[in-house]
């Protein structure tokens, strides 16, 4: 063991010497590995970032929430035309359900629409407007940086009041005196009564509360979209996530009665929950992962072939040196170790450069709001991958070197 470590150390020293003697070639050779490791680390951090963002987005849906809808959000088993042919969920359905359901902690209907929102000269197009009722806030974990949600009176009376998401408020207003100011939606003046704190889940796009405006659902039907032209969604909150299965069971039973279904008819509504989104996301992330691995694997493989090629050239060029070493007592194993460690060290150096590049690009990505950090495991990954690549690509050339005949190697010019 001790002598093995000794040989390893000497092999590394010899290889460092050889690498230093061929600086330019070594750098050119490692280009493939540099790019490969850079790709692997960047890809793995990016995937991690995407996954984290997704998870955050999912948790913003709440693990104790159900969404009763005409549409199945994440389930592809039901054909789209069947979903399409379902009757819209109406405010009537909501009211009947709300009356009959005993288990939920809070229930709120929502109807969304896209509208242009203006304040003074500023205008935002295609803003996601959520029409809902006062109880909505109890189905979420939303918190306020200023003001409040609309109350029962404002909701029932379909008053022109609005609650702004963090981003929307930032884009429409220059100062922080937003509450009690007015915005316009579809030509109607709405009084801002509350501004939400930043929720910070970028991946949900404009379904992120940061990018939404909340108004009483009656105002949506009055000014923006005829009632019943589209299905509403019923947001249901269970008292806890332990309760969610019971709430769901009850919801199915109640909704079947509400919709007047006979025992042999299929559900004409879907109950959506986080779980469905989670598995959909895991599928998506899985696909990204496989594609990413394939691409980076390819880059690494090309890099490895490059190293192998140059190692073969190096072995050929150094035939005489190999002959000398063998003549004075280097064993096959020693020569094998020398060239493999040379290849591994070259790759490791390349890998470190690649890792540096990856750190740099992660900094840049962070600048453009893509939340990535290179984790310790990415560093370990880079080291392991580059050393493995080095060993892999050094194997065949080193073997050629090791089995050279000393006399013939010495005669080589």
């Amino acid at each position, binding site marked *: 063991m001790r*002598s093995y470590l*000794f*040989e390893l150390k*000497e092999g590394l020293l010899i290889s460092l*010497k*050889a690498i230093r*003697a061929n600086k330019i070639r070594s750098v050119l050779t490692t280009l493939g590995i540099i790019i490969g490791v850079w790709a692997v680390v960047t890809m793995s951090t990016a995937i991690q970032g995407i996954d984290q963002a997704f998870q955050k987005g999912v948790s913003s849906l709440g693990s104790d929430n159900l969404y009763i809808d005409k549409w199945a959000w994440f389930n592809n088993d039901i054909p789209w035309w069947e979903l399409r042919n379902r009757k819209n969920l109406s405010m009537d359905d909501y009211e009947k359900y709300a009356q009959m359901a005993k288990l939920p902690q809070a229930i709120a209907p929502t109807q969304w629409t896209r509208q242009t929102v203006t304040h003074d000269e500023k205008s935002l197009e295609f803003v996601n407007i959520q029409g809902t009722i006062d109880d909505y806030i109890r189905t979420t974990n939303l918190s306020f940086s200023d003001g409040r949600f609309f109350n029962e009176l404002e909701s029932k009376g379909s008053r022109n009041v609005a609650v702004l998401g963090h981003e929307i408020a930032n884009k429409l207003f220059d100062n922080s005196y937003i509450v009690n100011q007015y915005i316009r939606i579809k030509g109607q003046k709405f009084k801002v009564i509350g501004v939400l704190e930043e929720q910070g889940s970028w991946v949900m796009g404009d379904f992120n509360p940061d990018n939404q405006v909340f108004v009483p659902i009656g105002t949506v039907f009055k000014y923006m979209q005829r009632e019943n032209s589209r299905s509403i969604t019923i947001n249901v909150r269970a008292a806890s996530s332990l309760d969610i299965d019971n709430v769901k069971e009850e919801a199915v039973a109640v909704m079947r009665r509400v919709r007047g279904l006979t025992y042999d008819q299929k559900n004409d509504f879907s109950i959506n929950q986080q779980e469905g989104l989670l598995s959909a996301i895991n599928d998506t992330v899985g696909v990204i992962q496989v594609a990413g691995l394939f691409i980076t694997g390819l880059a690494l493989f090309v890099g490895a072939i490059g190293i192998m090629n140059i190692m073969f050239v190096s072995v050929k060029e150094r035939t*005489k*040196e190999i*002959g*000398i*070493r*063998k*003549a*004075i*007592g*280097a*064993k*096959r*194993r*020693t020569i094998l170790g020398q060239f493999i460690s040379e290849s591994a060290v070259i790759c490791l150096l390349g890998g470190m450069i690649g890792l540096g590049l990856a750190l740099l690009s992660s900094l840049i990505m962070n600048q453009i709001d893509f939340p990535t950090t290179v984790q310790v495991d990415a560093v370990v990954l880079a080291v392991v991958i580059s050393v493995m690549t080095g060993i892999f690509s050094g194997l065949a050339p080193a073997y050629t070197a090791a089995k050279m*005949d*000393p*006399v013939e190697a*010495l005669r080589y010019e």
Partner: protein
Amino acid sequence: MSLIRIEHIAKIYQVGSEEVHALRDVSLTINKNEYVAIMGPSGSGKSTLMNILGCLDTPTKGLYIFDEENVSQMNDNELAQIRNRQIGFVFQTFNLLPRSNALHNVELPLIYAGIPTHERKERAIAALDKVGLGDRMDHKPNELSGGQRQRVAVARALVTEPSIILADEPTGNLDTKTGEDIMLLFNELNDQGNTIILVTHEEYIAEHAQRIIRLRDGLVESDKEVDKRVKPKENGVASN
């Protein structure tokens, strides 16, 4: 006491469809502390014999006993070990590592012998001192003259304290004067008890040895002691 014993050694090279008999049937015994010169025309098999004696190559036929061990039956690893511990090789073309300095070149066999750094350096420096290159240790081969390079090679051959030093035309690439200096070095080493086998085709070089073996066409043509009364070593240098 015999250090080397070979019996009916033959080496046949296959060149295309033709067989080249580099050695046909050679038997020899060489004792400890002997100083032997091998002579013969070009192509007579001198280098082939040296490579076999030096365990760099294996014979096609025959028996080779080195220090009571049967070398003919050894595998690659064992041969490497013998080369490392028992044999010091000096080549016509020096065969130094061009990118390493003199000290590292001399250290190399000790590295393969697994000698720790400190002791290694000490021994390499001592060997370089012995060949008179103590002040050239950090010079690379291309910063040294031919004679100096060969001295580094001799130091490398000595440093492991081998049982025998094999030198294949060590003066072949040197001018007469430098060649003589190297020969004096070999004389000195022999006087200190080293066993030496040396290939040359210069008579005056061979006369440094105690025994001259002549090869021709892969066979031993003659094997004679040198008459030291007629040509003492010191006079040998002067008369050429």
